[in-house]
C-alpha cells in the first residue's frame, strides 16, 4: 500500500523548466516573449510548456496567440476547469499545426467571484467549453453569447462539478 518507487517527481519540480525537452523549452521562451506585455509566468505542465497569466488578460492573450505569426495557434483543444476550493484554475490547451505543438495557458479566478472574459470571439470551439464550465462550476465568461445550461437542464440547482457538491444525492427532476 505504499507509493511505488518510480514516482520521483514531486510538486515542487513542476516549476522547473529544465525538465522540458529542448524544442519545448524554446517554444516556452518564444511564447513568453510574444506575451510579455501580459507578464506571463513560465512553468511546466509535466512535460508541456505552460504559461500563467491574469484572468482579465485571457481573451487578449488568446487573440494574440492566434494572430501573432510567430505562434499562429490554430485550435483551442481543451478548456479544463479545476476547483481548488479557494480558487478555480482554468487550463487552456492551445494547438498549433505548423510546427506541431501544444501549449498550456493557465489562469485562476477567485472562488467567490469566478469571472473572466470569454474567448468565444477568438475560437468558436470555446462556446461549448465555456458553457460547460459555467454549468458545472459556475464560472461566468463575460462576452459569451449564450451561457444557458448545456449539459444540465434548466432550473438545476448547484454546480455539480465543484468539490463540495454532494456525491450520492439526487435531485428530483
Amino acid at each position: 500500500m505504499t507509493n511505488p518507487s518510480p514516482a520521483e517527481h514531486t510538486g515542487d519540480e513542476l516549476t522547473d523548466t529544465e525538465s522540458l525537452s529542448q524544442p519545448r523549452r524554446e517554444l516556452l521562451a518564444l511564447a513568453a516573449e510574444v506575451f510579455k506585455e501580459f507578464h506571463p509566468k513560465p512553468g511546466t505542465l509535466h512535460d508541456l510548456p505552460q504559461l500563467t497569466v491574469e484572468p482579465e488578460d485571457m481573451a487578449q492573450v488568446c487573440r494574440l496567440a492566434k494572430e501573432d505569426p510567430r505562434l499562429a495557434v490554430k485550435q483551442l483543444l481543451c478548456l479544463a476547469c479545476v476547483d481548488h476550493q479557494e480558487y478555480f484554475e482554468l487550463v487552456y490547451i492551445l494547438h498549433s499545426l505548423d510546427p506541431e505543438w501544444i501549449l498550456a495557458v493557465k489562469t485562476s479566478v477567485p472562488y467567490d467571484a469566478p469571472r473572466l472574459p470569454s474567448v468565444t470571439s477568438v475560437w468558436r470551439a470555446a462556446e461549448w467549453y465555456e458553457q460547460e464550465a459555467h454549468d458545472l462550476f459556475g464560472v461566468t465568461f463575460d462576452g459569451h453569447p449564450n451561457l444557458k445550461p448545456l449539459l444540465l437542464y434548466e432550473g438545476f440547482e448547484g454546480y455539480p462539478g465543484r468539490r463540495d457538491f454532494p456525491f450520492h444525492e439526487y435531485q428530483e427532476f
Partner: protein
Amino acid sequence: MADASSETIRSGEPIEMLLNMGPQHPSTHGVFRMVLWVDGEKIVDLEPHIGYLHRGSEKLCEGEQYHQVITLFDRMDYISNFNNELVYCQAVEKLMGLTVPERAEYVRVILCELNRIISHLLYVAAIGLDAGAMTPSLICFRARERVQTVFEAVSGARMMHNYFRVGGLKEDLPENFEDMIGELLPLLRDDVEESDKLLTFNEIFLARMKDVGTISADDALDYGLTGPCLRACGIDYDVRKAEPYSVYDRFDFDIPIGLDGDCWDRHYVRMQEMYESLRIIEQALAQMPSGPVTSSLGRRLIRPPRGDVYVRAENPRGEIGVYLVSDGTDKPYRVKVRPPSFCNLSALKHMVKGAWLADAVVILGSLDIVLGEVDR
C-alpha cells in the same frame, strides 16, 4: 408553425416552421435532440440540445480509486472502449513516470486498432442506413461480431472490457490468440472491402454525400474539429504521427486525407483508415515480443505524486485529451476529458445551415458522434 392562413401560403411568402427531432429518434445515434427552423425543405437554423446522457462521469472519477476509473472511461465512448482505456492509463503512467512492458504496448496497439476498425464499421453501418442502404449494415455487424468474439476471449467482455491497467494489462493474451487473429484478419479485410465496394463509390450514395455538409479547413479548426472530420478538410493531423504515443512510431502507415471537407470526404477518410489500421495490426503482430505484460507495480493501490498532466491520443472519432490532476491520494483530484465528439458536434450548426432537411440526417451521421462521450 406560425398561424399561416391560406392567403399567406398562396402568396408565396416564406414561412418558417419549427421542427423538433429527437431525443428519441433513430437517426440521432443516441439521445440527441435538435430543433430545426425550416423554410420549406431548407434549414434556416438549428439548435442542438445535448445532456440527456449526462452522468457526471468526470465527477464520478473523483470518487473512485485510480484503477476503478478505467471502468468509467469504458463508458464514455462506448464504441471504442480500448482507445479510451489507453488514454487514461497513459495519463496516469506519465504522471507516475512508469514504463510499460513492450509486449503490453504491442497488445494495446493491436486491440486499439481493431477497436478503431469496428468503430468505423459501426459508422459505415449507420451512415448506410441514414443514406438508405441496408446491406452494408449487415456486413458490418457480422464483422463487428467476429472482432468482439476475439475481444471477449481476450478480456472477458464484448464491450466495457476493463482490460488495460496502469502500467500494462490485466493479464496476458489467451494462448490461442495468434490462431484467432490469424483467422480473423482475412475475414475482416474481406468485410471492409465488401462494404467499401457497396457504398463508397455507389452513385446514389455519392449523390447523397458529395458536396453536402461542407466545412472549410479554417472553420473546422475554429470549431476544434479533430480526427477524420478535420482530415477530410485536407489537414494532415493525426496524433499517432504528430506526437507518437505507445509504439506507434515503429509502424509504417499513412494518414488518409480528404479534399473538400464534405460528408463523402469524411466517409472516405474513415474507409481508408480501416485499411491503414489493418496494416498496423499486421506489423504489430509480426514485431510483438514475448515477455511480461504488467509493470513492477503489480496490483498494488496506486498513489501518483502531486501534479497535473495533459495527455492526448487519437481515438476513432478524433483527438481525445485527458487533463488529470493528482493531489497525492489514491483518488484523482480532477479528471477532465476533452471528448472528440463534443467538439465535432458543436460544428453541426454551422454545417447544416442552408442544407436540405433530408441532408441533416446524413450530416449528423457523417460526424459519427457517440452521445456517451458528448454528455459524459
